[in-house]
């Protein structure tokens, strides 16, 4: 049980930049340390991506539950969040003065456009992957017009709402609508 905590503490400590970055490390740990099959891990990843919450937490809960039941789930989750929590707490106590230092400001002013680039880039990559089926240069082209339909409907709803109501629609509502659209468009047609 202690090794479960420690393994996930390490994962929390060494993964930068969110969910997708931690997938290789979690897979390796699950297979080599906890003897979970590769196929099971792949299923876990698919579910983690399509259920709410950060992938890291979802994966930790899954593997924890599989190894030691509910208590295992809690311990693995605690392990993966503690490093972030402690580090940000430390930075937060320093930040008022930290952000006033001109060198820190210079560093962050370089990071900001990079972050915006990463976000838009990720959106474009996912668009190409899901709508056109192209993941790498070797993938075959397959046009998914149903996903494109859902994408267009959601985009129109969001933009119309902004124009009419003068404020942004909550992403939560859009997600619920899109789940219903998925059931209707993939299920009926």
């Amino acid at each position, binding site marked *: 049980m202690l090794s479960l905590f420690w393994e996930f503490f390490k994962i929390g400590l060494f993964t930068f930049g969110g969910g997708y970055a931690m997938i290789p490390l979690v897979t390796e740990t699950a297979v080599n340390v906890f003897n979970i099959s590769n196929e099971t891990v792949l299923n876990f990843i698919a579910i983690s991506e399509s259920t709410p919450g*950060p992938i890291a937490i979802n994966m930790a809960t899954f593997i924890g539950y599989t190894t030691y039941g509910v208590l295992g789930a809690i311990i693995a989750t605690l392990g993966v*969040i503690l490093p972030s929590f402690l*580090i940000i*707490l430390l930075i937060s106590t320093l930040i008022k003065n930290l952000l006033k230092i001109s060198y820190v400001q210079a560093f962050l*002013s370089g990071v900001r*456009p990079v*972050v915006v680039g990463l976000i838009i880039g990720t959106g474009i990559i996912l668009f190409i992957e*899901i709508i056109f089926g192209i993941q*790498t240069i070797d993938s075959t082209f397959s046009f998914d017009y149903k996903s494109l339909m859902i994408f267009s409907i959601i985009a129109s709803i969001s933009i119309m709402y902004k124009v009419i109501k003068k404020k942004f629609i909550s992403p939560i509502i859009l997600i619920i609508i899109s789940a219903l659209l998925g059931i209707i468009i*993939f299920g009926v047609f």
Partner: protein
Amino acid sequence: MVMLLLISMKKIKELLHLFWVFFKVGLFTFGGGYAMIAVLENELIDKQKWMDKEEFLNMVAIAESTPGPIAINSATFVGYKKAKGIGASLCTLGVTLPSLIIITILSFLIEKFNLLEIDYVNYAFRGISACIIFLILFAGIKMFISLKKDLISLSFLFITLICLILFSIFNISFSTVFYILIGGFISLIIFSVNKLVNKLKKGDKN
């Protein structure tokens, strides 16, 4: 005495609100980090008005350049800003609990019934994927609009964008943390060189 009670009631209400906001964020963000940014942006800037856009981008920059899931980093950050250590703990707990509960129940259900084999569950998830793409793009564009658009910023943005897409298509693995560190350090070098040049110019005049 009554005053004290009222003050502490108000404090407790505030803390519960903090917890609730992050519980909602945890409950309704699918697909990890960048989708989380879209929901956080809507919640923290537009609805709660807890921070402005510049502050939000700073927070994301810090969350991205420190280890751990962005969601946890942001929750701890906002919680500390609003109510110090207790706030940080409550927000982190709030954002974690939905996942913990849902996945535990789901693990149990998957063991018992073959939940993943149900077609309609799959269809709903495919609909959600299309929506997530839109949310991520939309959040990115909103952040682009509020970004300071000088030559350096724009070139950083587009180089990152193009490298990210090319590396992904050609299947080259390059951790996002490197983009962030490279951007930060180049900007730091430009700043230091400028400072040095200005100093030298002043020295010449004297």
